[in-house]
């Protein structure tokens, strides 16, 4: 019942923050967010891994099942549990939420209690997404994330907040609907009477299809699987997002207030890749492994996201937009790692999710701290802030190097694992080889280094100049502490990636044992 307790704590905190007066709500929300944070660390310390949540027959860590409803002969139940893939993401969520709340103290200056209430509600939904193991429960949390996000962008965002909020809303909702139809159409073909995800995954692996299913009169099982794979990939890819489905992301990021950007880049994007790993690459691994055109398409999408995202970042002059587009680029590595189907590919992809969550959170927060003082994010408007805000700029530089993959920082570990896994991959592609594409993707790092160094050179260093009337001084302590904490974590996971990688590895290996990969 630990997971339920975590979610309940978030919801109670949300209610408390919502009812508290604006003045104290931020502090209260921070204190409330420490409870799930402590809880998740407690989960981590007592964690016993039993492999992959969808494939194991054993009792999962912190697993619990409560019957919920019977609908049309199918049993739905509240089923949650954690494995080595979801636990790191749960920990990431609780860490980033607490830090995002602290980083909101300065920029959020109206309707605070509503803001913090929504942030904690968002945390509850995110924890649910990463721990739910029944499709309907999972889908409720998955969609529930949109509601607080819509308000957080729409009420506290920048000038074009209303447009950005509705765009994010409609894009991701359309994607979810497509995914739902694809998945349900697949499940009906199986000999199961439940929406329990492990049961479905195991039935799919056993190819246990019902012969009298209406759709199977028109198409064969392979086509059904392929169609389901395609719709689900589309649904999750919008969330990730990959090129060309990424256009909602820069708008949402630029308009969202800093703490919301942190959660959006740090956790929400991981929902997409997490779901890809769980659904497409675990349940339907066969589609990628046996169909080299599909494998090619996915790898190509990943590589294009890496390169094109980085190029787009190069063309931006808004610091926040630069970081936003580089997220598209970084998530491309995750796609590449997933398609590789090796221990280091899948594991690296998962590790990269956590690592990118920390680093992109760090970058967005630092840009936010600079913005709090200068009230501009445009590269052309400012230069030489290093003089006035040495500590913040120091963290920014360190974070940027993390992004570029400097050794001993988590970005290096994540990308290195992905490349190692992708080079060793035996996934067959229809055109070209996996190794060729991996080499191509590695060029992304060069571009990342290029735009980050260039942007830093123009804004952080040189002579101090600022084309606004604000007095720029050192950032307050509560602005700097979260970014220092994140930087510390980035270094910790860079020095000791095994803190998470071991459990990730134990949970992705069962996927590889299904067949295929090395």
């Amino acid at each position: 019942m630990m997971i339920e307790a975590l979610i309940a704590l978030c919801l109670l905190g949300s209610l408390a923050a919502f009812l508290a007066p604006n003045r104290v709500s931020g502090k209260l929300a921070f204190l409330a967010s420490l409870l799930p944070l402590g809880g998740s660390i407690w989960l981590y310390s007592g964690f016993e891994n039993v492999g992959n949540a969808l494939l194991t027959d054993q009792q999962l860590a912190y697993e619990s099942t409560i019957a919920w409803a019977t609908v049309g002969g199918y049993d739905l139940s509240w089923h949650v549990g954690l494995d080595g893939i979801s636990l790191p993401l749960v920990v990431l969520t609780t860490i980033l939420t607490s830090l995002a709340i602290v980083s909101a103290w300065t920029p959020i200056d109206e309707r605070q209690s509503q803001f913090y209430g929504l942030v904690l509600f968002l945390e509850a939904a995110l924890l649910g997404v990463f721990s739910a193991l029944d499709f309907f429960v999972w889908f409720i949390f998955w969609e529930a994330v949109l509601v607080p996000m819509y308000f957080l962008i729409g009420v506290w965002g920048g000038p074009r907040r209303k447009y950005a909020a509705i765009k994010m809303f409609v894009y991701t909702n359309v994607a979810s609907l497509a995914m739902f139809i694809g998945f349900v159409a697949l499940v009906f073909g199986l000999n199961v009477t439940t929406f329990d995800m492990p049961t479905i995954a195991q039935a799919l692996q056993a190819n246990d299809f019902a012969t009298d299913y209406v759709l199977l009169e028109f198409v064969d099982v392979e086509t059904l699987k392929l169609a389901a794979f395609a719709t689900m990939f589309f649904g999750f890819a919008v969330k990730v997002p990959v090129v060309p489905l990424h256009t909602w992301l820069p708008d949402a990021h630029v308009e969202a207030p800093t703490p919301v950007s942190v959660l959006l880049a740090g956790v929400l994007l991981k929902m997409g890749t997490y779901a890809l790993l769980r659904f497409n690459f675990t349940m339907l691994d066969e589609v990628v492994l046996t169909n080299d055109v599909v494998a090619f398409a996915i790898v190509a999408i990943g590589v294009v996201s890496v390169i094109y995202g980085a190029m787009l970042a190069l063309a931006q002059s808004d610091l926040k937009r630069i970081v936003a587009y580089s997220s598209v680029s970084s998530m491309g590595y995750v796609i590449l790692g997933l398609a590789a189907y090796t221990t280091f590919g899948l594991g690296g992809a998962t590790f990269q999710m956590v690592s990118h969550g920390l680093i992109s959170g760090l970058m967005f927060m630092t840009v936010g701290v600079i913005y709090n003082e200068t009230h501009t994010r445009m590269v052309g408007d400012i230069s030489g802030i290093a003089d006035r805000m040495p500590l913040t700029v120091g963290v920014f530089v360190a974070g940027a190097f993390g992004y570029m993959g400097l050794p001993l920082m988590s970005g290096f570990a994540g990308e290195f694992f992905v490349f190692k896994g992708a080079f060793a991959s035996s996934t067959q592609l229809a055109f070209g080889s996996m190794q060729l594409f991996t080499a191509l993707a590695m060029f992304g790092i060069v571009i990342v280094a290029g735009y980050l160094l260039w942007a830093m050179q123009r804004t952080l260093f040189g002579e101090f100049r600022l084309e606004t009337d604000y007095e720029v001084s050192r950032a307050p302590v509560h602005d700097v502490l979260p970014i220092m904490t994140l930087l510390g974590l980035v270094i910790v996971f860079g020095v000791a990636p095994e803190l998470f990688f071991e459990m990730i590895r134990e949970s992705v290996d069962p996927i590889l044992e299904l067949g295929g990969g090395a």
Partner: protein
Amino acid sequence: MAAPLNYPEYAALAPTVALALTALLVLVVDMIDPGKPQRLLLAGLSMVGTLVSMGFAAWFFAAGTGAEEAIVLFGDQLVVDQMSLFFALIFTSVTALVIAASYDYLHDHSYQAEFYSLMLFAATGMTLMASANGLAVAFVSLELASLPSYALVAFLKKNKGSVEAGLKYFLIGALSSAVFAYGISLVYAVSGSLQFDAVAAAISGGVGDQVGVLGLGILMVLGGFAFKTASVPFHFWAPEAYEGAPAPISGFLSSASKAAGFAVAFRTLTVAFPVASAGAFGVDWVLAAQVLAVVTMTLGNFAAATQDTVKRMLAYSSIGHAGYAFIGLAALTAGGSNGFVVGASIIHLFMYGFMNTGAFVFVALVEHWGIGRTFEDYNGLSTKAPVACVAMTVFMFSLAGLPPFGGFISKYVLFWAAIGNGFWWLAAIGAINSALSLYYYSRVVKALWFEEPNGNLEDFEVTQPVGIYAALTAAAVATVVLLPALGLFSGSVTEATVSLFTP
């Protein structure tokens, strides 16, 4: 025909009887001192009667009345089973909300007793529609539900819009009643019977050269249902009627009355004209329902997206939801899990009853405050009345099919049921419409929370009318709670409808 409860079989009609008696009682009480209407007494009495009826329906439903074998009464004219009881639950819950909201909405109107009594009579008719076991009873009960509704729509006698709406509603209602009655006569001409199962038996062996007459008859009967459910092609009364009518009545019609139309449609079509041989009736009504479902949901959603006033948007949204509910008739296939499809549609109508009535109650509240009707007039309302705005937000998101609200689960269960019967394209069209609906529902949310207040709120004092706030809160709580509470009724409902398909 053993009733699980130790009472005479006619006791199973208690929900209907309670409503009818209350309607009469309200009139009697008003006669004691007609010059001085007792607002609280009349509303309270109606509320108590409705709650008693709801209590009976819930009790019988939970006790499994009619689950094993339906209770058939009055020479097979009425049937009480789990489906009719659940529908009674839908009607009475909507009626209770509407009565609570009307208490404040009608505070300075005369003819209070008549208002509540008409509403209760309409509700009585609706419960009979859900129990009708023959075409004659279906027609009479449909009229019993419709005639009071015409008067209720035109209740604001001094308001031109209300009177016009009433007239329009009445004319189209009369026309579609005629169509419905004519359709019944054609079916009778071919089958020689009005009982659903007798009709089915008579036409099961084929009807020879009368197939065209039968097909036309079925189509006309379907037209009668399309009117009652505000579906294309008999939908155009709905926007006018819902906009002109008192807002609580708009909620009543668009939730309860629509559900009643589906209640009678489900039983009539599936029992009298079995799906398995639908192709042999000259007109395949399942195919017709597919066309109606697609056209209705698409038209409703596109039209809703272009409206300027919230009430009219809700009217078109209600047409769109009729289209979703029509999936219950459209996604049927011989040998499929048809009971589940119908059951999913009923569950959606149940959820819809709360969220849609709640939305109209919010409109009633804004009309009560007198701050305008358009989206712009709603701007910044959350700064003045946050609680009511939270409730409205719940309704909007639930209507759009977002969690954690009841409308989310019922809409997806409906799509899921359609896919299970192989109608993935129907679900896909529904999904596209659902995504589109997000646009106009979120316009309300945007106005309430994102926009700065307009001048119309400057010297506006928030009052908190007790009845409307109670109805809003109850509907919002129900909309949220029904998601986790799905398990309490989903199994029974999706099983209850299976018997429609087992002759």
